[in-house]
């Protein structure tokens, strides 16, 4: 049962890539939409901080647990894009 994905907005992908790179101390170029969030070394604490930043930046409510219900950066980015559309 795959969820039909809204195409992720570029500015969302860039924002997440920069944030994740900062939290996991990696080169942003190494982070692609199909990168698996857990394999990038994203910890629970990073999820809480990142979702706080997404909320402030995009003015939406985002439960930190949402991040881990997604496998990849792209899937998470499309979820945020959908919420932006719904706002």
């Amino acid at each position, binding site marked *: *049962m795959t969820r039909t994905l809204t195409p992720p907005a570029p500015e969302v992908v860039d924002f997440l890539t920069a944030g994740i790179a900062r939290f996991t101390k990696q080169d942003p170029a190494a982070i692609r939409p199909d990168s*698996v*969030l*857990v394999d990038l070394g994203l*910890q*629970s*604490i990073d*999820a*809480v*901080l990142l*979702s*706080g930043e997404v*909320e402030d930046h995009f003015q939406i*409510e*985002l*439960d*930190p*647990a949402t991040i*881990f*219900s997604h*496998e990849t950066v792209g899937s998470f980015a499309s979820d945020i894009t959908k919420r932006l559309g719904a706002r």
Partner: protein
Amino acid sequence: MPVVNSSAWDTPDRFVTDPDDVAALLRDPRFTVGQLATHLDQIAARGGPRFPHLTEMARHAFAFQTGEAHLAARRATAAFFAAPALTAWAPVADRAFASALDRLEAAEAPDVMRDYCEAAFLDFVRAFAGCPGGDDERVLELIRLANNTTQPMLSLKTLGRIDAALGELLGYLSTDPMPGVDPSLEGFPAFLARRKDRLSDPAAAPYIALSALVGSHTVAQSLALALYGLLLGDAEHWRAAAEPGWTDTALDRVMSLYPSTLTLVRMAEDEVNLGGCPFHKGEAAVMDVVAANAELRRRVPDGSAHLSFGAGPHKCPGAPLSQLFLGRAIPALARRFPQLALHRDGVRFHVTPLVQYPVALPVTRDAQSRRLTGRMVEIRDLDEARAIVNDDETWSPPRMEPYLTALADRSGRDFGPARLVARNAMFFMSGERHAAIRRAVADSLGGNRLARWQPLIEAETQAALARLAAAPEPDLIADYADPIFRGIAGPVLGIAPADPERFDVLAPILQDVLEPWLPIRELDRLQAVIAEILDGLRPPATDGLPGTPLLTRLMDEDLPDTDETDIKALVLVMYGASFNMAHTLGNILHHLLTLPPEDRKGAADPAWIDAELERLISLCASPKYIYRMARGPARIGEIEIRPDETLRLQLLSIDRGVGTGNLAFGHGLHRCVGAALSKRMLRTALPALFARFPGLALKPQRHRYFEMTQTVALATLPCRLGSTGKDRP
């Protein structure tokens, strides 16, 4: 001829509840069915809109017909609905259940009403009632709406929507053979077309077919209500439905217990006296089917005598269909999902004065532990869960304090109050400090220490009973469970707020402490409340209390690395956790009062409550989860666990009616320190309530749950206190 007035349902004490009176009334020609035709004429006469399809339904649907036309139509169609004819439809029903079971298996958020009861119903009724047209969701939506036609005094807007729904559904009916169905099986429209000559009015055929399609939704309603009743019970009770022969032994009782029909209504055509009750001309007589069935089960325990399908000329023609459908649907579901578990706080009901049925039945399909996300694994197996809570080497409680410290460093924000709470929340503690605090707390709250508090518990129970008795709209949460919890937890723990009213408003947020990965904005809100509450706490009064409050005792202890502020935070967190006393009491009351009266006969007897307590706790305890974190890499069954990953022990599947040995209060090092106090409160408050109000009953499905992710907690539980023992069961 006036029309049924919905105010007739406002006085439940005037309902006809004696089964003999109900049967006599349903057979008495001086009482007639609701006059939909008259109602529609009166609306039109006053310049209101005309409802063409409803007008035809009022003339041709059995539920509204009277006299010879009705009897002729019943005779002409009886053969189609009779049991012998239905056996040929059994394979169609079984195929419908099989495909609905696959749908339930694949559903991302499985719901037994949507994915099983209604899916199978529609699949079956499309062939049976000859309705191939329209897409599934649309047809179901129209049927649900039109099924309300029998409700009295519907608004003009609703009548208009129903009329349109009937018109659209008419277009989806067909006399053609259904694809994929044995061609020898004739749908109801085709059957009617073939026997047109035997109908008093041939033009009636489409509307008789339509009323069968719409009316048969009641089968799906009753199936859903039966599954709700069965799934509220323990796992053993559910698995029994998978045993061969269950239908023969148990179906009658299910039919008696779970009809979606709450009441039936008839109009007195002139002055009538029935069972000692006078009815004047035009008055509506409301019959309480639930109460009548309960009385019949007292006379015939196997439930074979019931009035779920009514009696007399208007007895429901769908009775054999219900028997066939429920008799096969329930075992099929129990065999496919023996560990099915219902999320009772996610259940939603459609309730009117006439019917009640679930519209949402969210479930967990099996008790298989599985990975939920990249960072969380859910444990649903009792043995796995017990091994985890006993193995402190591999699994630690959530390490909240180091987590908040790191969050503070990384975010540059001050989480002082939140870290103070995390440091002093016993469910997050480990090691020697935890053991020392646990010993000190056990000195106050241990089972053998609590006898001295019994007078306070009984006094608070009596006070709550008086409050309940005096309440204009009695509610078992606001007027019983909450006051008892507040009246006990405050004094026993030593929580003495300077402004109790403000405290009661703020305190519930303490329950959010347990939420994993709390968003930063919620963390800010939580700690602002904690700071304000801590500021407002006064040293507890100790005079006049039968025991020493916990806070006072802990202040005298020499606890490692724990100052006065820590102790106030520690006791405050325990007050937050104590809300579960009120929630669990509320859940048990809802559970007991949802049971058939004969299954809770002993509720006023402390010995019966004592014998049932562990099983009731396993089903109704309010905490949903226990959390653990992996200290290092680990494995559970096939699942690989990474260090620092979170395990969520789902108590719904783990505990489902396990009785003794359940994990509702946890186990081992972190077993709940409030367990003994909670059980003592339950052993006092439960029998006292049922002894004081033997006729206590819930207002059907008027309860509401809090939207809480970690806790099953009722916000309201409206009830009728009933006469103290006069005629009520």
